[in-house]
């Protein structure tokens, strides 16, 4: 699960991470209220209006604006709220901005005394531990920094038993070239950020930029958090922060049926049991001349209800020209899935796109007979190779 910037900042703040203060707003009036409150609380006379969507590169798309007066706060909020924000990460269709963060300006004072850093914490899969990644090159695309100047990316691995040690936090601050108060504040910043990472079961916390202000404070100006979905049961208050507007409505619908569904932009829908086989089936569709319209893993408990729900979700996509059902029956019996297909077909009524059904494994023969005798107009296959050929054939027809 992903969070908005304002939610991420609220979370890390609880663990003592200093943040650029701000208040989320979903109307222009609320934005003005927020700006007034920030002025009263922090003394700021300048505000930053930031679109709250689950995508990076917001500034590039016009989703982040500075306002130097209340009139400007109104003007910028009006412009950003309700806009369709297109960034390098949203895709061409963009994302509707429903919420903005009105934040204090932290870029005051002598510009030569300020410095932007990059700090993130994530799980290192090969070393099986947490790693702090940091760089003096903050405020820009870190992938680009890693590519052009890899020597400027530093990593600090955290021993799972010992945890983050003070010498490690000091090492980070030294490597970032800090001294005096800024050094002390960075040491505290790193240990607080790691504490928050651990406590909320995050899979990624990224602070970019992490700002050294002109008065030597260290502040998270932006924050991105991805959470470990498997651990959400331990954090109901965080799970409640989920913003369904940021997710594809068909994916949300699929989730209600316990289907693991991801919407893609191809022309062949697919329904498969098992994530690996589902990805492999998508690849096969591509090799057969089509392009996958979705990823759908019906899991190990496929039955008539889940199959019907899967059908309806796939058919709601007008781009779908054919559907491939690929089930390798193990614990799941093929005849049960076949019955599900027959029932779903009858319940839904006429399905206009060709359907290719490939059932293999436990009771595959019974299943094939069931489908053949049902009178349904489906193309039936037993080998994966045959299914691929059928995909190719129906797309040509």
């Amino acid at each position, binding site marked *: 699960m992903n969070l908005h910037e304002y939610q991420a900042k609220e979370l890390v703040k609880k663990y003592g991470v200093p943040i650029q203060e701000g208040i989320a707003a979903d109307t222009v009036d609320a934005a003005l209220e927020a700006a007034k409150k920030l002025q009263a609380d922090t003394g700021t006379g300048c505000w930053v209006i930031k679109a709250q969507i689950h995508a990076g590169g917001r500034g590039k798309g016009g989703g982040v604006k500075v306002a130097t007066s209340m009139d400007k706060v109104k003007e910028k909020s009006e412009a950003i709220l309700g806009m369709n924000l297109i960034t390098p990460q949203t895709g061409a269709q963009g994302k509707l901005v429903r919420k903005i963060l009105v934040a204090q300006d932290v870029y005051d004072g002598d510009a030569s005394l300020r410095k932007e850093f990059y700090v993130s914490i994530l*799980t290192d*899969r*090969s070393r*099986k*531990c*947490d790693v702090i990644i940091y760089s003096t090159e903050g405020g820009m695309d870190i*992938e680009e920094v890693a590519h052009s100047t890899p020597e400027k990316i530093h990593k600090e691995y955290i021993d*799972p*038993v010992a945890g983050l040690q003070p010498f490690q936090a000091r090492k980070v601050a030294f490597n970032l070239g800090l001294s005096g108060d800024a050094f002390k504040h960075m040491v505290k910043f790193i240990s607080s950020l790691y504490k928050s990472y*651990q406590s909320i*079961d995050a*899979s990624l916390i990224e602070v970019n930029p992490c700002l050294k202000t002109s008065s030597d404070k260290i502040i998270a100006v932006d924050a991105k958090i991805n959470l*470990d*979905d*498997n*651990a959400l*049961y*331990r954090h109901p208050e965080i799970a409640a922060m989920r913003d369904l507007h940021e997710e594809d409505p068909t994916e949300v619908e699929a989730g209600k049926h316990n289907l*693991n569904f*991801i919407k*893609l932009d*191809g022309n062949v829908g697919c329904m*498969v*049991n*098992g*994530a*690996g*086989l*589902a*990805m*492999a*089936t*998508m*690849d*096969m*569709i*591509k*090799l057969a001349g089509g*392009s*996958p319209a979705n*990823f759908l*893993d019906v899991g190990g408990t496929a039955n008539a209800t889940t199959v019907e729900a899967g059908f309806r979700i796939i058919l709601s996509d007008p781009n779908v020209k054919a559907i491939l059902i690929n089930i*390798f*029956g*193990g*614990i799941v019996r093929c005849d049960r899935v076949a019955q599900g297909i027959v029932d779903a077909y009858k319940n839904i009524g006429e399905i206009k796109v060709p359907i290719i059904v490939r059932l*293999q*494994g*436990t009771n595959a023969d019974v299943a094939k007979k069931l489908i053949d005798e049902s009178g349904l107009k489906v193309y039936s296959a037993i*080998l*994966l*190779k045959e*299914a*691929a050929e059928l995909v190719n054939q129906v797309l040509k027809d």
Partner: protein
Amino acid sequence: MSVLVNKKSKVIVQGFTGTEGSFHATQMLEYGTNVVGGVTPGKGGTQHLDRPVFNTVADAVKHTQADVSIIFVPPAFAADAIMEAAEAGIQVIVCITEGIPVRDMITAYRFVKDRGCRLIGPNCPGVITPGEAKVGIMPGFVFKTGRIGIVSKSGTLTYEAADQVVKAGLGISTAIGIGGDPIIGTSTKEAVELLMNDKETDAIIMIGEIGGGMEAEAARWIKSTGNKKPVVGFIAGQTAPPGRRMGHAGAIIGGADDTAAAKKRIMAECGIHVVDSPAVIGETMSKVLSGVIA
């Protein structure tokens, strides 16, 4: 010899009396696996499926000399179950459970490594040495005995590969489902290494997917040790979009190096016979073994 499990393995089931544990323990017994008992805290001293139930893994080991455990414990308690098995001296721990928090697995992984035992999974279909022992949830009938080893992150794709191998007139020595989570006990390279050193395995099928660097690591190891046995490889997720989790918690493209294309390129450079289509895994293996593909 096969690897990890064989007819001599004494297997216990953790989460024995639960729905999943009962169902699969029954299936394993029918297959002929030497299931010697199970563990369900609080039900020790009773019998289930004609086998003794113990309160702790330590009790089970003491009374049955079990050396293999298979875990069907819910995700919130599964890391604890793994560590209990390791502490009790179980040599091969197979964890089927899907959905264990990453933080719990970081702790469990270290705990298991410190005790020198082998963990397979979690979020995996288990291990099968056909004709000897099935310690997993795979459909046993698909796996016929033979001399091809399989290493795979995915369950149903393992069945698919095994089925194709059998239809190509070959069979399986041991199939190892290593699991699709970001943190797993046995890496692709470690599983491949077991099969490379196994006298009863002539060739290996290595099935990976997007995310992480395990396939590249395995490929480089295979090359550095002189490509001792032929390997056929497939990577699922060539059409997967970046940044999305494709079902498996670990199947997510994070950068340029963990895409299917990047992994396949590295594997091919290391002398692995990489197939583009999952439909030709079996026939490619057959061609490699008969010398049609050099």
